[in-house]
């Protein structure tokens, strides 16, 4: 988007890739949370 209103197909592909990257970040956070829960459950 360079000042205009139009969003091209290429832009959309970049946006989708960005969204996917952000989802991966969340997945990593969830993995850490799950790992903590597993260890805590094993120890108790």
């Amino acid at each position, binding site marked *: 988007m360079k000042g205009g209103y139009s969003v091209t197909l290429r832009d959309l592909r970049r946006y989708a890739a960005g969204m996917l990257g*952000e989802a991966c970040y*969340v997945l990593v956070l969830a993995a*850490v949370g799950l790992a*903590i829960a597993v260890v805590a459950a094993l120890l108790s």
Partner: protein
Amino acid sequence: MIIQPRRDDHLVIGKYTGKVIVGVGLLMAVPLALSLVLGEWSVALDFVISSAACFICGFGLQLLCRTERDLGWGHALVVAAGSWLIATLLGALPHSLSGHEGSYLDAVFDVMSGYTTTGLYLIQDLDHVSNGLNMWRHLLTYAGGQGIIVVALTFLFRGSPGAYRLYVGEGKDERLLPNVVQTARAIWIVSLGYLAVGGLVLAAMGWALGQTPLRAFLHGVWVFMGAWSTGGFAPQSYNTMWFHSLAYELVTVAIFVAGSFNFALHWAVWSGNRKELRRNLETVSFAVTLSLTVLVATVALSRLGIYPDAVNLFRKAFYQLASGHTTTGFSTIYSRAFVVQWGPLAMLATTVAMAIGASACSTAGGIKGMRVGVITAGFVADIRRMISPESALIRQRVHHLRDILVDSPLLRSALTVTVAYLTLYGLVAIVGAACGYDFLQAAFEGVSAASNTGLSCGVTAPAMPVVLKVVYTLAMWLGRLEFMSVLALAGYAYAMVRGR
């Protein structure tokens, strides 16, 4: 000497406040249309009344205040805080007319909670609320998440220096693109992109989980709006426990974590700079503090043995903590369960998570990861200086889109705002305790309000003292606008009375 504002100042402020209020009136077209489509006639009438009231105030103010002056910094701050206040008073009309609020104050509390993406509510009999009003509740939290000024900027303003000052007045300070109106549009591209994808995914899941297509669609859109804006409103009183689904919970986590990102980070990642996700000060700081608070809460919960296995422990601890840390306020446990089942240590971990909050220039509230990161970096630099030879030059940097040198001015501003937040948290907690609530519960609820989170441990209720309702409303307003604008408005009011 305090200078009394002149007529010209009033005119500028009135004109721009009027513009923002027209924006609020336009926003009401969405729930109005929905209630017409679904045949909720009396609800539609309420929205006609409310939006007409907004237009009368908005156009009336603009007609009364005719001036060609652009906004100065002081004006912009006053407009930002003032238009949030007036938008709240007018936005509460549909709530109040619906008959679901105990008083107009309750309605104002709910709308302030919506705009500031907090999520605490006083609305009664939520499970029998109309679809139109539910759309309004969630739409105003969605609009508030982007910033109602951003909404107005996108549609009603041409880019002037004053427009940028307004944008900053709302607690946002990043220019994603050189022009502020373009920045506002970029924010909308990200938000609408997520709305399309997230809303559809949630709707499809709701359908698969046994909802009718219409309800699945509406719930999908509303839960998306509650999640993305880190607001925490949901269409049923059971909040997100309604769905009883791990997959649904995970998708909401993904949406509210994404919603808690800095819009500048989104824009960098969406422009192809995906490395930024790993290197950014705020994502790193968030990951560290979230993991630590999850660790404390998980250990506390596993010692109490409430949740029988690892997956349950994960689903409860991680969900509430992530929701608290991103200042969302979605919850898959009953409010009172924090007190009855979770106990003091897990509650404390949640309170700390809420107090820190997520990213600057996002939909989230709280102290913000940026400040926590900068203060930590400053602390590390001091330690490094202490153990290095005197001649060594220590330069501590943090990474946010580019490397930034941690110098005294940066540290000072981070510390000032952090102290302001901590003071606000403390004051609100004290008021809660003074009203007779247990201190830990008062602190939990107070931090939740002031950090715009919205998790509740049961203090917030229609029957709570009026003082507390007012204090929470003010705390939400102060916390969301990061003090400056509200203080500028207070200064303006003071100068009007006492200035010369």
